[in-house]
């Protein structure tokens, strides 16, 4: 246990320069396994979706009834022509999977953006002003929570028919509650900070204070919630499409692929397993990314 400090050695105490907030964030991001793994997989999926026209071996809508229900490559009857097999209409599964990624990502991001704008605006206003504004926003949140998303979505689709745009709109107008609650809480914590008072005393108008002083400090929480809401939107869309109330065929939505594969589950299990696994992997990677961002930007990791 001879842990003696050797004070004989020569270099004087270095001038320690502490890193800037941005540098600290990057440093921690590089070391966080969940962030790297989730981010990496997500990046691959995004690349696959963006480059689908170049990467997909076949046209996802091209039907080839002579080649129906071909198993994937790991079966004895599989061919490299269709590495993931074909579905009941002879369409190449790999190509459908790649184009399906686009649908999932577009819906996820678009719904997140719409709900993000709604929820953040309501939450920040409620958190900053308190009082009556807070009461009104709370009433709105409670009302929204009383409405089950799935039933509302089903009702809307039953009235006007299902499509990509309808799904995005319904989701965007419904899933903003978490944004509102989290942004409200974050803003409340910050509104009594002295730098907000100092900005007021310097003559800043209220909009300027909210946008320039408060928002940069709640961005971290915002990003974390945003990633979680993307996954929520993706899962709800998959469920809606599975029920036939979301994206309409022949669009290669992964949820729709699961629905179409339902009837063939016993004899061609890969048909349902592959899009199911795809949804799982996408959601998992976004969740890992979101958790990673939360850990990296958490205040404890800062000092």
């Amino acid at each position, binding site marked *: *246990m001879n*842990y003696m*400090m*050797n*004070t004989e050695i*020569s*270099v*004087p*105490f270095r001038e*320690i320069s502490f890193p800037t907030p941005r540098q600290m964030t990057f440093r921690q991001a590089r070391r966080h396994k969940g962030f790297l793994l989730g981010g990496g997989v997500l990046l691959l999926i995004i690349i696959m979706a963006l480059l689908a026209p170049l990467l997909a071996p076949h046209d996802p809508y091209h039907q080839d009834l002579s080649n129906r229900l071909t198993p994937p490559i790991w079966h004895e009857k599989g061919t490299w022509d269709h590495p993931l097999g074909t579905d009941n209409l002879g369409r190449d599964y790999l190509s459908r999977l790649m184009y399906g990624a686009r649908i999932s990502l577009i819906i996820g991001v678009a719904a997140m953006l719409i709900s993000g704008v709604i929820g953040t605006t309501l939450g920040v206003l409620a958190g900053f002003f308190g009082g009556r504004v807070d009461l009104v926003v709370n009433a709105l949140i409670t009302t929204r929570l009383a409405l089950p998303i799935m039933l509302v979505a089903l009702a809307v689709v039953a009235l006007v028919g299902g499509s990509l745009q309808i799904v995005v709109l319904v989701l965007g107008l419904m899933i903003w509650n978490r944004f509102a609650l989290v942004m409200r809480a974050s803003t409340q914590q910050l509104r009594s900070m002295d730098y907000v008072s100092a900005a007021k005393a310097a003559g800043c108008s209220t909009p300027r204070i909210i946008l320039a002083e408060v928002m940069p400090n709640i961005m971290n929480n915002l990003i974390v919630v945003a990633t979680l809401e993307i996954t929520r939107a993706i899962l709800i869309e998959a469920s809606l499409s599975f029920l036939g109330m979301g994206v309409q065929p022949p669009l290669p939505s992964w949820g729709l692929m699961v629905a179409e594969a339902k009837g063939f589950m016993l004899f061609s299990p890969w048909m349902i397993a592959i899009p199911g696994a795809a949804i799982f992997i996408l959601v998992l990677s976004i969740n890992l990314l979101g958790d990673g961002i939360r850990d990296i930007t958490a205040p404890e990791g800062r000092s």
Partner: protein
Amino acid sequence: MSALLEVKDLYVDIPLAAGVLHAVRGVDFSVDRGQTLSLVGESGCGKSLSVLAVMNLLPKKAKWYADTITFDGQEMDKVRERQMANIRGSKMAMIFQEPMTALNPCYTIGNQLEEALLRHKPVSRNEARDRAVFLLEKVGITAAGSRLKQYPHQLSGGLRQRVMIAMGLMCDPPLIIADEPTTALDVTIQAQILALLASLQKEFDMGMILITHDLGVVARMADYVAVMYCGQVVETGRATELFENPLHPYTQGLLRCIPVPGQTKPGEHLGSIPGIVPTPIGKQKGCVFQNRCTYVFNDCTSAKVDLTRISAGREYRCLLSPEVCRQNMNESQAT
């Protein structure tokens, strides 16, 4: 007669992202029954960490080592955490800075006081309650019986601190460690709490380690003082000696910084110590105070500066001789 608590050569290292922080380097201190030792220094000097190390309450990633720690005749470095948990509270009581957060809001005062005793001694709940009432009255809380049923949030800061002191005394400990006990309190209440601590110490013949950054508190309360700077002890001595005849340039500098009503001239510049405290990461050559000292000379940047002993208990860590130090003090007071 050996001291109640004796710590020799204490080191505390804390690994940080920027390197290992040598927060405490070679610190000695000791305290006896009936005595008050004050560890005084500014933020980051290592005074709280030193005491937390002795109580084995440092955060897990901190590493500490001491040549010897003797408490009540027992060698402490051989003591395991389980035994330490028994000693903490029953033989070493700690009073914290924040009375608002040191008490658990979910339990009554009486509950927490009784727990403090029942955890360590095999007494009945009734006996514990009687002792709680006795001590609450000792710390000046009237209607102690009904107070036992109150919750912490129903008491003011000053009252909570009194309850904290009572809690510390439940097991009749020989040593009390008070870490900034009055910093969070109003100034009129601070005087009352300090007077209470002093009288209780006398009555129960306890040793007290008082950690603070407030030199006024130190002057009025402490018998012995150890001034800490950047992880090292730079001066020790009896309070009267140290305040009337400070030797180390840092101690002298600190005393010059304080406005004293009736002594410092209003509207004029206060003395100041230029620069800021260095961060003890990496190795260090020479005196730790070199970049801020008015009297720095060549050797200060290269020689190893140990504690110079003037008499028992009176030491200072500087290459200048005591006479030169005294001269410096007189000169700066004359200007």
